[in-house]
């Protein structure tokens, strides 16, 4: 496993990136140059010596917000991914192991959750409940386990459903921006500072049409690079675990 992650340049880079984000999640708020929530009269100003990545519509420092926002973004993502993989593995294992009627019932349940469009479902759930981080984590975790369930089941049965595994791995990575999408739609915890809420506030304040790229680019880029690194790590691990994939490359 260590060789899979650190044996290639790609693996080393992704691990380094993930490490950096974990570091930011822990210490980001401490090393931020400004109070990320402090407002000032310098509203929507471009990058300067004082504000490396410019300011928000309330005059807060964008760079500090990006650093401080790492924590909520990472915690929500990890917690939701944890719930969804535990749930998915349990359902997949039980179905695949017991077979017969148990499998058929669990399998149709999975099918339902695979077919019901995830973001609309989460939007509905998040709106019906009151927005908070716990609700957000639970909603994502409870709606996104079906892909994992399907992988685990097929691994239990045989290793042959390759195309599906590949597809679902991609789906797994998509959990990460679905989380941000909920925050972006204003369905996250309104008081929490994350990359998703930064994009939401920037969009609501008209940052894109004001040409305030310094407010729009950094949070989205952080999400992209994080998802990218997680995807590459998953890919490296899978190649290690499933030798058939190695041959096909």
């Amino acid at each position, binding site marked *: 496993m260590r060789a899979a992650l650190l044996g290639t340049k790609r693996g080393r880079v992704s691990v380094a990136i993930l490490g950096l984000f974990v570091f930011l999640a822990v210490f980001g708020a401490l090393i931020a140059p400004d109070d990320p929530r402090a407002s000032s009269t310098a509203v929507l100003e471009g990058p300067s010596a004082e504000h490396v990545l410019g300011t928000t519509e309330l005059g807060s420092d964008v760079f500090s917000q990006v650093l401080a926002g790492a924590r909520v973004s990472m915690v929500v993502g990890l917690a939701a991914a944890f719930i969804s993989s535990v749930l998915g593995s349990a359902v997949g294992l039980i179905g695949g192991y017991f077979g017969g009627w148990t499998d058929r019932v669990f399998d149709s349940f999975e099918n*339902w959750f695979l077919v*019901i*469009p995830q973001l609309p479902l989460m939007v*509905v759930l998040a709106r019906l*409940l009151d927005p908070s981080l716990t609700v957000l984590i639970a909603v994502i975790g409870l709606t996104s386990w079906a892909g994992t369930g399907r992988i685990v089941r097929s691994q239990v049965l045989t290793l042959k459903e390759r*195309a599906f595994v590949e597809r679902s791995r991609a789906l797994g990575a998509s959990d990460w921006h679905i989380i*941000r999408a909920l925050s972006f739609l204003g369905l996250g915890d309104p008081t929490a500072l994350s990359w998703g809420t930064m994009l939401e506030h920037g969009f609501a304040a008209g940052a894109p049409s004001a040409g305030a790229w310094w407010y729009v680019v950094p949070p*989205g880029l952080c*999400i992209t690079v994080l*998802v990218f690194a997680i995807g590459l790590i998953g890919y490296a691990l899978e190649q290690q675990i499933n030798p058939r994939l190695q041959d096909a490359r």
Partner: protein
Amino acid sequence: VSPRWLAGKALAALLTLIFVLIFNFFLFRVMGDPTTQLARLPRATPEEIQELRAYYGLDKPVLGQFADYAGDTVRLDLGVSQQTRRSVWDEIGDALPWTILLVGVGTLLATVIGTWLGIVAATRRGTRTDDSLLGFSLFTYAAPEYWIGLILILLFAVAIPIFPAGLQMTPGAEFSSWLDKALDVAEHLVLPATALTLMLLGQYFVIMRSSMVDVLTEDFITVKRAIGLPWARVVRGHAVPNALLPLVTLSAIQFGAVMGGVITIETIFSWPGLGDLSFRAIEDKDFPVLQGTFLVFSVSVILLNLLADALYFVLDPRVQDA
């Protein structure tokens, strides 16, 4: 793969539809009882709440409520928007064509470009072209689609203002002809459709690439080459058709994600489709509209999955050989 298999799929789709109906009913009845919302109003008396419960049929037993709901839904009576007082079905009817246009164009472009790039990469495996295409598609895949949308606005509506940043046509414009209007809509469609295309492109590329790589190493391809068929003909005539099959399933699976993308992308570009409608319903807590759009999203995904299964049935070479 047989007609029986297809019939099984159709039955499964029907069961899923029923499940969605039940789910939708309980989701909104149990969690979003409209009277709990109304009861928060400062001066609602118990009598008024009781009256409202009767109005919504909430005083009946649950099974009776469900029968009412299922009957109404089948008759396409989805209730009335709490915000506009128009029927939810009318609201959806206005929005649906815009979503179909956006999703249709975006999906078509993503499929064609993604498939083509996948073929290019697979036949040049291990080269620099392959690497950069893979890097590009993984990047667009990792990037959230709404962020791609915002970047497109920054680049092509603000920095270089060549495309409109939002709406579906110029507000208040008078069009001299049908063509003028179509061109105006097309101009407004460019950025949201590009965002959707970039969101979907990566998956088509990755699946097509790995599917092609698989097919190209199979025995029958080696045989075709050994008997002296030109490489280009082997790729076009034999490898591509076989590699396309997994893509059919992918487009169906993708469709759930497309519906998510529709919500965020339409919101960003104020594109007046179902996604924009749901977003406004979220903001206004307009539950009948939210319930209606959720139903339409779910039903369309189920139907498209069934369509993909049927297509798979038609395209599968094993069926044609028999």
